[in-house]
């Protein structure tokens, strides 16, 4: 995977992770172009598209778009499930995650991502193991997590 972007329906970037070295200018250009392209697509369209010499895999969860750029030989469907597993991890960690959680705790979103994907490749696909690593880190903080506040945002993910 070359990069992953999370952005809102309004086109606001919520998280960006780059696995290839690019200049800030180039990153901004890519982001602008892709956000525009993906937002212009209709709901029932397929989740894959060709873009430059890369393949874009994206999926929308409530108000957030998760968008990955993979290379030609990479597998689209498994990338779609990478996105889903990441959403599950966020959901489990924050407890019914919504966009606000990611805005206010962006650093946590990064830490979880780093446990799951490293250098653009799946590092640990077990949900339990990833969350265990994050929770251990939380224990090291000495400060106990505060109680979850009332959410006013739509959960990204509905667990049945």
């Amino acid at each position: 995977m070359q990069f992953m972007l999370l952005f809102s329906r309004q086109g606001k970037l919520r998280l960006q992770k780059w696995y290839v070295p690019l200049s800030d200018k180039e990153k901004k250009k890519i982001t602008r172009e892709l956000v525009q392209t993906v937002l212009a697509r209709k709901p029932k369209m397929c989740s894959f598209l060709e873009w430059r010499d890369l393949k874009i895999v994206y999926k929308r969860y409530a108000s957030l778009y998760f968008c990955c750029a993979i290379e030609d030989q990479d597998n689209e469907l498994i990338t779609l499930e990478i996105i889903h597993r990441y959403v599950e991890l966020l959901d489990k960690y924050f407890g019914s995650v919504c966009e606000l959680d990611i805005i206010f705790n962006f650093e946590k979103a990064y830490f979880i991502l780093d446990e799951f994907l490293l250098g653009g490749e799946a590092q640990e696909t077990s949900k339990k193991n990833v969350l265990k690593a994050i929770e251990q880190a939380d224990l090291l903080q000495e400060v106990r997590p505060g109680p979850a506040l009332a959410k006013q945002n739509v959960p990204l993910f509905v667990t049945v």
Partner: protein
Amino acid sequence: MPAVSKGDGMRGLAVFISDIRNCKSKEAEIKRINKELANIRSKFKGDKALDGYSKKKYVCKLLFIFLLGHDIDFGHMEAVNLLSSNKYTEKQIGYLFISVLVNSNSELIRLINNAIKNDLSSRNPTFMCLALHCIANVGSREMAEAFAGEIPRILVAGDTMDSVKQSAALCLLRLYKTSPDLVLMGEWTSRVVHLLNDQHMGVVTAAISLITCLSQKNPDEFKTCVSLAVSRLSRIVSSASTDLQDYTYYFVPAPWLSCKLLRLLQCYPPPEDGAVKGRLVECLETILNKAQEPPKSKKVQHSNAKNAILFEAISLIIHYDSEPNLLVRACNQLGQFLQHRETNLRYLALESMCTLASSEFSHEAVKTHIETVINALKTERDVSVRQRAADLLYAMCDRSNAKQIVAEMLSYLETADYSIREEMVLKVAILAEKYAVDYSWYVDTILNLIRIAGDYVSEEVWYRVIQIVINRDDVQGYAAKTVFEALQAPACHENMVKVGGYILGEFGNLIAGDPRSSPLVQFNLLHSKFHLCSVPTRALLLSAYIKFINLFPETKSTIQEVLRSDSQIRNSDVELQQRAVEYLKLSSIASTDVLATVLEEMPPFPERESSILAKLKKKKGPGAVSVNELEEGKREAGELNGGGERGGDSSAISTPSPSADLLGLRAGHPVTAAAPSAGSLLVDVFSETGFIHYGRLMLLIFLRTHERTITKPVPFLAVPACLSASHTLLSLALRFVCKNNGVLFENQLLQIGIKSEYRQNLGRIYLFYGNKTSVQFVTFTTTLNVQSKPVEPLIEGGAQVQQVINIECLTDFSDAPLLNIKFRYGGALQNLTLKLPVTINKFFQPTEMASHDFFQRWKQLSQPQQEAQKIFKASHAMDTEVLKAKLLGLGMALLENVDPNPENFVCAGVIQSKAQQVGSLLRLEPNAQAQMYRLTVRSSKDTVSKRLCELLAEQF
């Protein structure tokens, strides 16, 4: 609206984020950010030492501001300080900042690397992971230099924790991608490969990405991974859906690992060991079988994970391309997906089938789905899916279904999305050509293309149809009739006018018998489009008109009148005006015979790869068009070109160039022996079409020159074409003014290399004649209009012979010696005349002198005829180093610190000839702003100044 749910509650950060979110406008947001930045700056600069928590909070705020899209140019040092904190969260934020805002400041990098080193050796797995994550996120060369040696050790050490191993594997992968030269696996190779056997699935999942990447680069060293991967895969595939506990994803056992294993196997050919291969085939069959089983869950995640493995398995089957049974099963499976309700699956099935279509085992099976694919092209609502369908139709096309597929693609073109039209046009053009059985169908198809999507028909496409019509006389009459009809449409595309003009100009006579398309009707039809066309098309039409005068003498007076009209002969466009003037004169002074020779039908084009195929390949990027396909295209294009009955002129050396465009506009049109590689430019004299054959062009140029001496100069005529033509001949030798060695000439048969050395007034030239063919050249002779030693009369195929020419400069000169080469190749006599690149400057002796001397001598050479000056536009980039190198190559001494203006160059030298020595001084003044040069040469002999100036004006 504070919403901190977890974490250590950096309250200040949450408040700040809330503030930003509450901003009503962009301006308000920027104001709030600037306020915060000022606050953070003052805190960082303040006297009071900040505690870790505050530092962490401010660094985090900076990070947030950066992620909003603002530039951050401070805070790096504070982040680096956090790295050495004992508090995990502080360290963690420090690393995050470093990873997101990578900085190239070397002092910082040293500090960061130090902190990482400490954490790596801390033996605290959490800290080690943080450090490894940071290396993997930054992945810079400096980090590779510092840690590429250490990380493999961590990866394979027996006491390393699993989580650390996982991070180490992917960290190493990232470093390998940035700096492969620094990551040396060597002794670790076998232990890394054995990570595939690790008990911990997470370790295998991480390590396999590293192994795959390394295998791609060093397949031999890692080939033991194949059998390990097969047995691992086999264990996963045969496990029950609950065996792998948390590595089972929606009832699919280890989908990520399975995909990665199948991907790794695609780096290798099928296993040679029968047992391993059998086990693998079994796995692949199981995967195909599972696709037919009822789903264990209705969730899309279940089917996605399952199908991800299936598609990866199909990729492997296609990669092996050796198991007909599996290939056909794969194809049937994909066929089912073509009608699946999930758009994603339809998309992937179309994509995957495209590669199956190129396998001989499954090509026929793919073809059975033609109706479904055509239907997809018509009904899919998503353009990216339609694109895949078009790609697949293209891939499954062969002689049996070409007509149907081309017809469907043409009708789709009428409504196709603009974004894919050009590619569709190219594909239709290629298929029509490749599978044409009768060429009237081909001509119809291309004309339809122009009619439906004229704007998207590139030059290559319409050049190609002309090339094919010219090479096949059985289709010429039909083509003339069809373009004539097409041109009658009230609104027809300019590309149609181009093709029509060209074809009627060449073959209009074939339909002139019918009174409905009599010569005058044809001409009037073409001319009715003239005013709506752009300059290049008009230029082409003018060439068509002069061809008409030759084909149909009865149109002469009408056409002459058109050419004579002010709108032509005084046209503000130089090219049009020139053509009008010259064609008018040609038609009035040349005899019918001369006219017939000059304007004869174009000879067939040489065989070469279809340039449209090359264009499609370029457009789609390498890999989009398989090699097979290209070669096939080439072969078939060859048939097409060679198919014409008329043979080429046997004494002509044609110079087909593989990348050339169709009509040889940019290279390699059939060109007679005089100066083959100059041919392209010469044809450019007539630009755009290459409508008039080069050999005859020379005749025309002769006529033009001749004409100019007997008639008054024509008003407004800018650059006489004859001048630009001879200039081209000259420029061949001009390439060697500033250098002594290189390739003097090259065509399909022969390459002539040159090496030369000069001392005083003597020179020695070594010519190397290389036979590029496999057939010998016999009776090889060269004659020079000065004396030379005879050359070996026979050159074996693939061999090279050498000829030495000794040169003495008797006096100054301006004409280079001519070298005439004759030989027989396969019975045909080849004849070639070249200018030897011997120019006066080769006999320069450099003279060093001080500033004072230089200017004194400069003043001494002050008679007007001793000086030659030229002001000219730069034709290359004005790079000082390149200029210096060129001036040194000229043979004079380049004098430093002489000219008061450091931008200028001055040189001094003496030309040594037997008769006399000619001292010369040179000054070159570049004007970078205007991209111009002023060149001044002063010599004791006026002809030398003039000649040097001429030679040099072409060099910069």
